[in-house]
């Protein structure tokens, strides 16, 4: 049973560029959430996708956008990168109809903006 996978593992970008991160949920899961974890901090919620729509959003600017595909995989896009966007980006999947909505995390993508 494959867990949550993310690609790429590491990424280096320059200020002003755009980046796309990818996530495949755990088998059987239909909901994907994205989190940003700055160095030395706990993860912060960016947004959540279910049925190919953004259902919830945290306190992140519109430069952060996403997409969910029919196979439940998801992308996180960040435009006009800032130095402050350097962080570990975590994807988590869950099955929406489960009462606990237990979220399983992927290994993350480390983004460095120079």
């Amino acid at each position: 049973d494959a867990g949550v996978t993310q690609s790429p593992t590491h990424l280096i970008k320059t200020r002003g560029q755009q980046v796309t991160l990818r996530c495949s949920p755990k088998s059987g899961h239909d909901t994907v959430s994205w989190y940003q974890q700055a160095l030395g901090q706990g993860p912060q919620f960016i947004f959540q996708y279910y049925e190919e729509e953004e259902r919830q959003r945290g306190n992140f600017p519109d430069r952060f956008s996403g997409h969910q595909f029919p196979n439940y995989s998801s992308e996180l896009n960040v435009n006009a990168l800032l130095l402050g966007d350097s962080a570990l980006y975590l994807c988590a999947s869950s099955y929406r109809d489960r009462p606990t909505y237990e979220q399983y995390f992927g290994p993350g993508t480390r983004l460095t903006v120079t």
Partner: protein
Amino acid sequence: AQTVTQSQPEMSVQEAETVTLSCTYDTSESDYYLFWYKQPPSRQMILVIRQEAYKQQNATENRFSVNFQKAAKSFSLKISDSQLGDAAMYFCAYRGGANNLFFGTGTRLTVIP
């Protein structure tokens, strides 16, 4: 807004001993879930234990147990018989009706052989 506070940036424990990590939270919701996640150097966030707020009984998973004090909004994690593999960052997290997780700032646990 929900907030989660972990007041211990770092903790250490001797192998085979017991350690307790603290967590407090603030919420106006009555129905919610609390979690402890472990994040080793590999970065993968691993669920350790969860507690449903409506349950009075404290959750237990093998060597891991919680002390859930709903009135005090406290949710501590006790690790018994600590092992070298328990060394990691531990995050306390809250999930209410919004179905997204709010995390604390984490506690780095060192296990001394």
